[in-house]
């Protein structure tokens, strides 16, 4: 079981984490952040593998992974 914490203010909304999450637990948030972009959000789920794919592809180092 894993989980991630997203730094939403730093997120630039490239959504690469969404593309690479094998479980589809990451999605676009509806609320804009201070940058004026829609950041991503994570829905906690015991099936999160903590595989870190999202963090590895994040160009802005916005994601912390726990396992």
């Amino acid at each position, binding site marked *: 079981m894993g*989980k991630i914490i997203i730094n939403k203010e730093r997120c*630039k909304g490239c959504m*690469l984490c969404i593309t690479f999450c094998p479980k589809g637990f990451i999605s676009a948030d509806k609320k804009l952040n201070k940058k004026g972009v829609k950041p991503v959000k994570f829905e906690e789920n015991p099936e999160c593998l903590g595989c*870190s794919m999202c963090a*590895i592809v994040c*160009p802005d180092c916005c*994601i912390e992974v726990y396992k």
Partner: protein
Amino acid sequence: MKKIFSHPKSLRNISTHYCSGCGHGIAHRLIAEVVDELGIRERVIGICPVGCAVVAYDYWDFDCSEAAHGRGLAVATAIKRVRPENIVFTYQGDGDLAAIGTNETIHAANRGENLTVIFINNAVYGMTGGQMAPTTLLGQKTATTPEGRTSLMQGWPLKISEMLAMLPGVKYVERASLDSPGGIIKSKKAIKQAFENQINKVGFSLVELLSACPTYWNMPANQSLEWIKNSMIKEFPLGKIK
């Protein structure tokens, strides 16, 4: 739960100026991770280019120098010769390393300077607005090749890594790609090798990273990674060149 992935120490915990989906952020992080893992933060000196990564020194938390456009390896040569105990690397884009700085690149390589070079190839000039780079693909549309690059008018994409690999002073050249988690992991391994080579006094080591520029490729981030995979890698094959 244990934290298994977070910000490397050598990367400042601030937002960068890079566009959404830009590969520079990944490359910066990988270098910082390698610097932390090798425990060389207090010995490392980075040479930042002119181009999009001009203020990389604002993001890395270690000693850095600016270099005039293309002159990174001249600056690095001198710093390494003056301070051989330090670990000196350049971070250069395709325009910096393979167009305006080709001379400095080739001669530092040919002298076999014990340096580490991280070469970011995104096939375009980002900072100035998407003009043709030496590595722009045939047919690729840029601000200065509005109809697409043609070999007749602009020549072919320059394979500088292969060129450098021919030189006896060059000890390690690898091309990797920031197009997927797997590619990023391989990229980091190559970067680590290039730094370890310097620590072990092996000699000139270069890692070319194929990196996305969604803004000037005019495509969303995920599509730009597909473009690396489907177009760039065909022209710039991955793997250890030397």
